[in-house]
């Protein structure tokens, strides 16, 4: 199982704050996961499209498309941050 978390504007656009999924067999990296999520269509396809500004963290560290993911990971997807 992997845990997916969504924050801020993306949480609202996708209509979910967290979910647990079985790691899809052919998904090994962050880019593969976001491609897999896009296949859900609708807001997923729109919000996670190539070129859209979103960030991914794996186990609470900022990640990029090449970051490896594995069973038990906590993966968060969120808009560029706006604190301070």
């Amino acid at each position, binding site marked *: 199982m992997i845990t997916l978390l969504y*924050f801020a504007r993306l949480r609202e656009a996708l209509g979910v704050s967290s979910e647990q999924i079985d790691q899809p067999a052919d998904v090994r990296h962050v880019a593969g996961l976001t491609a897999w999520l896009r296949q859900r269509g609708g807001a997923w396809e729109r919000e996670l499209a190539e070129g859209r500004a979103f960030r991914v963290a794996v186990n*609470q560290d900022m990640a990029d498309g090449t970051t490896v993911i594995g069973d038990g990971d906590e993966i968060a997807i969120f*808009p560029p941050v*706006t*604190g301070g």
Partner: protein
Amino acid sequence: MAVRVQQEDFDLGAELLALRQGNPKIGAIASFVGLVRDVNEGDAVAGMSLEHYPGMTEKALERIVEQAKTRWAIFDALVIHRVGDLKPTDQIVLVAVTGAHRGEAFAACEYIMDYLKTQAPFWKREQTPEGARWVDARESDEQAAGRWHKP
């Protein structure tokens, strides 16, 4: 080093006193306080709420402070960031750095603030006359953090 994420306000004087107490080697404290403004992108802002990613927020801030300590000869740093509902004139964030001299303290304080703006998972949602909206990240914040990259 201390990093705190909290709903409550903070007392700048009390925080700075606690940070420097008992260390006669400190010759400088640089501090920055961020405030909620009543205007953004030309629209009136009646208030805002700050969301964050519990756990990662603290981890990201601690890492930024660690990097600042590696880069400059500073003694200590304190970061307090508020979350929840805030209104114009409220304090949002405090970064304070102690050092022997002002140069390191000023630079480290600015560095921590610049990276906080681009790396720490906080999101602002502001209330305007047209309704609530998520604040968009600014390219100028990315550039501000980018200037610290070593050539």
